[in-house]
C-alpha cells in the first residue's frame, strides 16, 4: 500500500442480482488533488462505482480504505479504516468529506440559493438548530463566499428554481464546497447541459478543486471533455477498469476497448 493515497479501492464488487456482477473487481488508488475522468458506456458501472465510494449503494464485497485523518483532519491519525465497515455515525463523518455532484443537479428548488448552499454544511451543524434552518452569520458568510467562487453571488437570495440549468449545477458545486470535501464525486455532471455550459461548469469544478487541493472523480460521456479536463483517465468496460492513464496515453486502440460492448 503506497502511503500517499487518499482512497484505496481494493477488488470492489457489486451485484444487484445474484448472478450478474455490475462491478467485477475494481482496484485503484485516488491520490490527493488529482482530477480523474471516468469514461465508459452506459451500464459499464461508472455510476455504481461512484455511489459505492460514499455508500449510497452498498458494495457486495471488497474494500475502500482511507486513513482516519481523512475524516478528522489530524495528520497524526494514521489508523486505516474501511468505508464498507463504517457504522452510521462514522459514515456520516465520512460523507461530510466526500462531496457529490449529480446529473440532475438535485438542488432543492423551493429553497433559496443560499439555503441550498448552506445545506452542504449540515454534517457540521448543530442538529437541532439546523433542522429549523438556523445558521450562524459566519456560516452565511462562508456560503456567500462559495457562491462568489462559482460566480453566483448576485443570485444568492433567489429561489433556486429561478436559475438556469448551468447555474443550478454551479449552486450544487458551491453546496459541495461547504463540506470542505477532500474528494468530489461527480456523476455525469454536465450530461443535461449544452456544450458551452458544460465547459463552463467543468471549468469551475476543476478550478475550485485545484485551488482547494480536492480530488475529483468525474464521470463524463464525451471523450473530448474528458481529455481536456482530466489529469488522469480511467476507462470502465463490462465491470472492469480497462484503462488507467493520462489523456496522452488514451490512443484510438484504448478508446476502442473502452467503447466495445461485451456480450455478458
Amino acid at each position: 500500500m503506497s502511503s500517499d493515497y487518499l482512497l484505496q479501492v481494493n477488488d470492489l464488487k457489486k451485484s444487484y442480482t445474484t448472478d450478474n456482477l455490475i462491478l467485477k473487481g475494481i482496484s485503484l488508488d485516488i491520490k490527493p488533488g488529482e482530477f480523474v475522468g471516468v469514461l465508459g458506456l452506459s451500464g459499464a458501472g461508472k455510476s455504481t462505482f461512484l455511489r459505492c465510494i460514499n455508500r449510497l449503494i452498498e458494495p457486495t464485497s471488497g474494500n475502500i480504505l482511507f486513513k482516519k485523518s481523512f475524516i478528522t483532519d489530524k495528520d497524526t491519525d494514521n489508523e486505516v479504516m474501511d468505508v464498507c465497515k463504517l457504522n452510521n455515525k462514522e459514515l456520516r463523518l465520512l460523507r461530510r468529506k466526500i462531496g457529490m455532484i449529480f446529473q440532475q443537479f438535485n438542488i432543492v428548488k423551493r429553497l433559496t440559493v443560499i439555503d441550498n448552499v448552506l445545506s452542504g454544511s449540515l454534517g457540521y451543524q448543530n442538529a437541532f438548530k439546523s433542522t429549523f434552518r438556523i445558521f450562524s452569520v459566519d456560516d452565511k458568510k462562508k456560503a456567500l463566499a462559495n457562491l462568489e467562487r462559482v460566480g453566483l453571488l448576485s443570485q444568492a437570495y433567489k429561489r433556486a428554481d429561478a436559475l438556469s440549468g448551468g447555474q443550478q449545477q454551479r449552486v450544487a458545486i458551491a453546496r459541495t464546497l461547504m463540506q470542505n470535501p477532500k474528494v468530489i464525486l461527480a456523476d455525469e455532471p454536465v450530461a443535461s447541459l449544452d456544450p458551452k455550459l458544460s465547459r463552463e461548469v467543468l471549468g469551475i469544478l476543476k478550478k475550485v478543486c485545484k485551488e482547494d487541493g480536492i480530488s475529483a472523480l468525474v464521470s463524463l460521456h464525451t471523450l473530448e471533455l474528458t481529455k481536456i479536463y482530466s489529469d488522469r483517465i480511467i476507462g470502465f468496460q463490462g465491470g472492469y477498469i480497462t484503462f488507467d492513464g493520462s489523456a496522452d496515453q488514451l490512443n484510438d486502440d484504448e478508446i476502442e476497448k473502452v467503447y466495445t460492448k461485451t456480450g455478458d
Partner: protein
Amino acid sequence: MTEIKSKSRTEELKESAYSKSPPPKKNLVKIIINFVIVLIVLGWAFNGANFNIRELIEGRKPLISTLGRMMPPDFKKIVDPNHYNKPEDLNIPQLFLPIPLEKVQAKHKETWWNNQFPQTILGSMIQTIQMAMAGTTIALFFAFPISFLAARNTSPHPLVYKTLKIILSVLRTIPELALGLIFVSAVGLGAFAGTMALAFGTTTVLIKLVSESIERIDEGVVEAVKTTGANYFQILSFAVVPQMLPDLISFGLYRFETNIRAASVLGLIGAGGMGYLLNNAFRTFAYQEACAIVVILIVLVISVDNISARLRRLAI
C-alpha cells in the same frame, strides 16, 4: 415525371408498411358481450336501489309545493337585532372585542356568548367556521409528524409504515357522523364534540394524502442532502419538507372547505354548528327560515372556497 414517380413510391411504401404491420382487428362479439355484462350489472344496481321513474314523476307535486313553501327565504331572524337578545348594558364592540368590562357587564357578556350567541343563525355560522378551523388545525398538527412515519421512503422501518397504513385505512372508513356520535357520548353535546369528530376524521385523511405526497418527492434531492453527512431530521427539513409543503397546505385548505360542510351536518346530531338550526327549522315546518339558512350555508361555502383558493396560490 419525377413527381408522379415519387407519388407511386409513397403508395408502395404505404401498402407494404400496412401489410407488414396491420392494425389489430376489433372483435365485435367481445364488445357486445362486455356491453351486455355492463347492462346486467347496472340493471341489478338500479333495481336494488328501488329506482322508480313513476314515483319520481308523481312526487314532483309535493316536491314543488315544499320548494314553494321555502320561497321566499325568510331572513327576518337574521337581520332583526331583537332576535339576538343583546344585553342592554353592552354595545357591539364590547360584545365582540376583548375590552375590559365591569363585573356585571362581563357576566352578561359571558351569558350572552354561552346561551344566546350560538343559537342565532349568524352565531352558529361563525361557530361552524370556528369548528372547521380548530378541527383542521388539530388535524394538521398530528398529521404532519405522523405522515413521515407512514410514508414508505421516510419511515424509520418498513413495519412502521405498513402497520400505520393498515390502521389508518380502517380508521378512515368511520364516517364523520359516527365519529360525531362517539364524541358526543364522550364529551357531551356541543361544538367540542363536533370539533373532535372533524379533527379525528381529517387527521386520518390528511395522513394518507400527505404521506402519499412524500412518497412522490424527488429522491435525488434526498440523496444529495444525505451525501453532505446530514442526519435523519436534517434530511427531512432540507430535502423532504420543501417538496411536500405545497401539498400539505393545499390538502389542509381543501379539508378546511370540506369541514365547513361537514360541520353543518354534524349539527344534526347536536354536535354544534349550523346543522342544529337547520334541523330545528325543518322540524318546526319553518321552511322559509330553513331556506335562509341553506342560502347562508351556500354563501359561506363559496366564500371559503374562494378565500382558500387565494391562500393556496400565495403558498405555492
